[in-house]
Structures are given as C-alpha cells and as structure tokens.
C-alpha cells in the first residue's frame, strides 16, 4: 500500500497497535527486572526516508540496537534501541536481578551482549505476541541480531525497508522507562511494518 495515502484514522489505529504491543512489552520487562516500568504515549508517524538519519537526533550518537523479524500474516521488523550508556545500565540491572547479586562489572563483555540481546528479544517478542493476539494471526519470530553503532547507520536499515516502495517510512515507537533508585533507564521499541503487509493489518482492524 502507498504510504503517501495513509489516513489519520489509519495512523490512529497504528498508534493503538503500538500501545497494545508496548504495554505487553513493558509488563515483560517489569517482571524480568522486578521493577516498575513506565511507558510513553506511543507515536505512529510517517517520516520522509530522506530525513530518517536525523529522526532520533544526532546520527553520530552511539547506540545499541536489538533487531528481530516477524514472519506470518503480518510481517514486520522490530528494533529495541537505546543510547549506549542506557543499554549498559539496563544490562547492569538485569545482571543484578537475575544473577544473584553478581557484580555487573565482573561480567565479561560477550555475556553482557548476550544478556542485552535476550532482554531485547523478550521485549520485542512480547510486543509482537500482543499484536498477533489482537489480530488473531500466527507468526514466527527470527533469532535476534544485535549491533552497537552510530544511530545513522542503524536507521539505514529502516530506509532500506521502506525505500524500495516509496518515499516514506511508517514508524511506530514507544519509550519504555525502568524506574530505578539511581534514576530512569530508558529504551525505545520501534515497529516497522512491511509496506506490503499493512493492508492485512489494517483490514483486520477494519480501518482499510
């Protein structure tokens, strides 16, 4: 479907999809960390692919990103993205909670990366599960991929998903915030529906 003709009603529907997915993701993260997790009001926006590199700020910002693909009736890509120091804080919290008071500083980098990939995987899988319950579909989720790199380079992936079929990217995102004694740790869940599968999703939501 041509994103240039996307209506406000359809954007509202995508925002609601983001809300339901992120709610489930926040719950999963909260259980994993045994801490309250807050979420922002989800956004659903059409962004010019030529402006994507600056969409989340300075393209040179160092970020961590966990990426999964969902295949099924509704196909999409999901990214859990955090500034690098936020992601280090999240992994510290996870190791502290799940590994019996182990000092996070003593954990080797490979294991930290593995923990980050897994927490990202659980967040994104929870997001997808809620959407598929909503639309009554079945899906399979890929193994997660992880990258630590410049924000602009990560967003190239988004440009390549939407670039072949048009000039706009449909970005559905929500910030999750973990309440912690030392302050908040935040991360962003970003859903990128395949342009070709939007009709299926919007049809099921009766806003096609």
């Amino acid at each position, binding site marked *: 479907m041509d994103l240039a003709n996307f209506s406000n009603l359809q954007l509202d529907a995508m925002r609601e999809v983001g809300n339901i997915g992120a709610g489930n993701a926040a719950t999963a993260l909260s259980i994993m960390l045994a801490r309250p997790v807050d979420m922002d009001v989800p956004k659903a926006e059409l962004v010019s692919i030529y402006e994507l590199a600056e969409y989340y700020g300075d393209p040179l910002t160092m970020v961590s990103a966990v990426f999964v693909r969902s295949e099924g009736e509704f196909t999409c890509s999901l990214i859990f993205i955090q500034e690098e120091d936020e992601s280090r804080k999240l992994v510290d919290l996870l190791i502290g909670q799940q590994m019996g008071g182990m000092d996070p500083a003593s954990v080797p980098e490979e294991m930290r990366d593995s923990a980050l990939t897994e927490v990202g995987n659980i967040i994104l899988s929870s997001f997808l599960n809620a959407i598929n319950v909503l639309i009554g579909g079945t899906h399979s989720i890929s193994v997660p991929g992880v990258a630590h*790199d410049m924000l602009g380079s990560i967003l190239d992936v988004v440009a390549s998903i939407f670039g072949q079929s048009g000039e706009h990217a449909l970005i559905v995102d929500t910030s999750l915030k973990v309440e912690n004694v030392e302050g908040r740790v935040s991360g962003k869940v970003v859903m990128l529906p395949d342009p070709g599968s939007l009709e299926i999703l919007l049809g099921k939501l009766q806003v096609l």
Partner: protein
Amino acid sequence: MDKAHHVGMAEMVVVSAPESLVTLGLGSCIGLVLYDQAAKVAGMVHIMLPDSRGAGGKALEKPGKFADTAVPALIAEVCRKGAVRSRLKAKIAGGSQMFALPGAQTDFLAVGSRNAKETEEMLKKHGIPLSAADTGGNKGRTVEFSTKTWMLTVKVLGKGTAEI
C-alpha cells in the same frame, strides 16, 4: 576552515577545491565520490538502494537514491561543474550489513553488499576506474573526502580511522 558539505540520504553534492564532502553514519548505504584532480572538482552521492527497477518515475526525482541511476547522474553533475569525464576516478565506502539473523528471510538486511556490487558494476560500465574502496563488514562508517589530498577518510566506531 574550509567548508565541509554534508551529503544527506539520496543527495548529490559537487564541490571545488578546497572544500570537502561529508556523510555521517553510513550503514548499508554507499558514499560514492567521483573526482577530477586536474579540474579540482569532486562530487559525492549517498546511495540507498541498488536498483531503481520497480520504483516507477520516482528514480527520476531522486537519482541519488539508487546505484543504477546515481552513477550516471553524478558523472553528469561533476562534468557540468568542470570535470573531464576521461579523467574521472572513483572511491567508495559503505555497504555494511548492520544485523545478521541466521535463518530468517531477510534479503533487505543484505542490501549493503548489493549496493556495493551494483555501484562497482555501474562504474565499470561507465568506464570509470575505482581507485579505492572500503565496503562490507558489519559496522557503520562516517566518511569525509578532501579535495586537498583527494583522500577519503573513513571512520568506524571502535576501529579508528583509515584513509583510502
């Protein structure tokens, strides 16, 4: 300081010495530079995708977006600014695969290597020698081309800086 021109996604910028050209955070995209040292002219294009087929008339509006349309468009643009086609040389960087998901149907994640391959093939087709290339891998790159040294500086997070 001499002005550094930023080349955004699908953009094409041509400068004269001593100005420079910069692209920040290339992932799967390609930064292609064409330059003529004698005429002191250089152009950079920020290529997003390999192939304009299936994009309809859109490729005409933004020729820089696709490798197959970006190469001839940049040749025309640098020649219009005084470069001589037979003296043109090329340098490229970019074309990474940021994520690898074993077993998943993710052709689009491998778009970086197709971008690099198509750009090189188009240069060959147009008879322009490739004097340096730094493509592939799984890390992003920030590139800057100097019209004083005619070198392309490639910065990779955690790996440092190389001049090609």
